[in-house]
């Protein structure tokens, strides 16, 4: 494979706001998100459906689909600049070449009428790859690396592959042009447990081998614990907690993260020990206009939660946005975080 002497790029998302046009006006799916992906790390983003995590992932490629629109903010990727200012051919070339995107496994991210090999060649031609044979060789190596017979897979149509195989093909197509930033949207959803474990192991290994900067979107806290270095928890379009994965999961600070972890049934012990979060996640239309977005479901709700939106505060390697989480006064005013 191509030697990877280049260091992994960092990604800095700043004040990102994405709005969706609805009959009730433009409503934010992501509001004012700040998130840094450290070079060479895997960052997990967890959240319920509608928390804005997929919208966030698409923003990394400036690919928010109408009726959505990126209203404010920037996404700086080292070596590429602010993705949100890119357009037309520049943007197209960056996609695939610099930022790889892997779709959900259950969804069909491949053209059903063409063999994988032909779609690989389409990819190569789109990015002006001159050595198409080399591209096919790289693809076969990647597929072999993921435990598949490359030649046979390239000769197959999508419907001839299982969910796990399709998912690995998706990963191959995201990596074959040597993209250094990889975004995986729900990479293990709808796969069986063994395939899930295999895909997660592959993500981790390929990430390390190629020194990538990876973002994994999921609603599966268990899956993310195995693969990620750091974890961001999203709720109502905001990152409510972000820190090292073992710390966030081991000692969650935000009431939402705590509730989320309590809701996971344990392998040992009674299933009734798992407690569902009361209430339901907000939709675009039910997001409160002021105050904390989580307060309706929060057991530590205070008067200030009704009026003021909590500002994310960085302390002890962790960013938390909650009024109830006790923090030193000196840090309360600090808006920025690393």
């Amino acid at each position, binding site marked *: 494979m191509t030697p990877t002497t280049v260091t992994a790029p960092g990604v800095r998302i700043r004040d990102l706001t994405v709005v969706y046009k609805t009959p009730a006006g433009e409503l934010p799916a992501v509001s004012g998100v700040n998130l840094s992906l450290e070079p060479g790390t895997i960052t997990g983003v967890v959240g319920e459906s509608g928390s804005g995590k997929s919208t966030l992932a698409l923003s990394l490629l400036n690919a928010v689909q109408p009726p959505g629109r990126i209203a404010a903010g920037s996404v700086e990727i080292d070596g590429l600049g602010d993705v949100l200012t890119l357009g037309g051919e520049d943007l197209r070339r960056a996609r695939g070449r610099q930022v790889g995107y892997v779709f959900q496994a259950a*969804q069909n991210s491949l053209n059903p*009428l063409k*063999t994988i090999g032909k779609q690989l060649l389409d990819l190569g031609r789109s990015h002006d790859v001159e050595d198409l044979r080399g591209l096919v060789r790289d693809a076969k190596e990647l597929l072999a690396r993921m435990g598949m017979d490359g030649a046979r897979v390239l*000769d*197959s149509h999508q419907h001839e592959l299982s969910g796990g195989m399709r998912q690995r093909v*998706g990963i191959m197509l995201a990596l074959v042009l040597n993209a250094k930033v990889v975004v995986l949207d729900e990479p293990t959803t709808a796969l069986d447990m063994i395939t899930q474990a295999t895909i997660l192991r592959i993500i981790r290994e390929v990430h390390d081998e190629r020194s990538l900067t990876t973002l994994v979107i999921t609603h599966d806290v268990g899956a993310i614990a195995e693969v990620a270095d750091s974890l961001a928890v999203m709720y109502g379009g905001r990152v409510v907690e972000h820190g090292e994965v073992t710390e966030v999961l081991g000692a969650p600070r935000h009431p939402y993260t705590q509730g989320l972890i309590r809701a996971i049934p344990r392998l040992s012990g009674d299933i009734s020990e798992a407690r569902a979060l009361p209430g339901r996640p907000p939709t675009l239309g039910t997001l409160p206009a002021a105050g904390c977005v989580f307060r309706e479901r929060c057991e530590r709700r205070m008067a200030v939660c009704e009026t003021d939106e909590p500002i994310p505060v960085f302390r002890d390697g962790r960013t938390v946005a909650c009024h109830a989480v006790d923090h030193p006064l000196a840090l309360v005013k600090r808006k920025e975080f690393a």
Partner: protein
Amino acid sequence: MTNAVRGRPRWGAVARKTGGHLVRGLVMVWVVATISFVIIREIPGNPVLGQYESLIQKGMSPEQAERATAVLYGFLPTGSLWQQYLGYMGSLLHLDLGRSLSTPGVEVTTLIGSAARWTVLPVLAGTLLSFLLGVTMGVYAAIKRSGKLGDMLALSGSLLHGVPVYVIGLLLTAIFATLWPILPSGGPVDVEFVPGLNPGYLGSLLQHAVLPVVTYTLASYGGWILAMKSNVVAVLGDDFILAAELRGLKRGIVFRYLARNAILPLFTILALSIGMLFGGSIFIEEIFNYPGLGLLLVNSITSRDYALMGGTFLVITIGIVVANIVADLLYTAIDPRVRSGGAA
């Protein structure tokens, strides 16, 4: 996890499939032939027996009358139903459909053959033209669906789809043959030209074909554009289109992905409508006085020409059965999911 099969067509399976289709098709044709035999035999007034009896009344001997009627209908008018049926089927196997009543003495096959020529030209040209036009416009209507152009195109489709073909035909005749007479109003060709590959004859042929072809095109265009638009919109929502864009594929390639997937279901309809063309287009042929199969069928019904009627029905049936087989095989050739016989 490794249950994938090679993406190559299995020609053995294709041959078996084709064989099955042919057998089923023959059964269909046989069923229709039987039904039309029984209907002709059982209509009140029994034209076969009527013919036989009127010949006897005219002074023919029963044997002569029987033979004369047999020549007309292709089967014996007397004897048990079974004997007549076997006789009819026997002559069918020899492609003998009997003789026409309304054009005495002329074989039904000859009449159908000459009418088919006049049907194939306008209907086939109209079908293909409307398909090309409708599909292209359908893609634009889908891509520009939130703009004015898309609205206009979709509206044109709904409008033309809703207007009956005879209204379009009469309107075009009124405009281009009466108000502003630049085109002939009817007939297949001017009689002053000698049939053959000479410019005068061909020119007259084309001139006469314009209005029927345009009418047919406009009448079927609406269906194509609406179907293509909804297919494209559906495929646009498929993940692989967004995935292709996120992989940075060139616009042209993404467009081909889109178009090929959207047009696929339409090929079946196209093959079927080409099969239907043997039914002719009764309205268009009537309006433009085009001696095609549709007109032949109408005339055979009004003149109670039962042999011709039965023959025309049979040709229409065969056309549709064959088109069905072709549509199915076509799908096998262009859709890999069907080709390998597995579920997607």
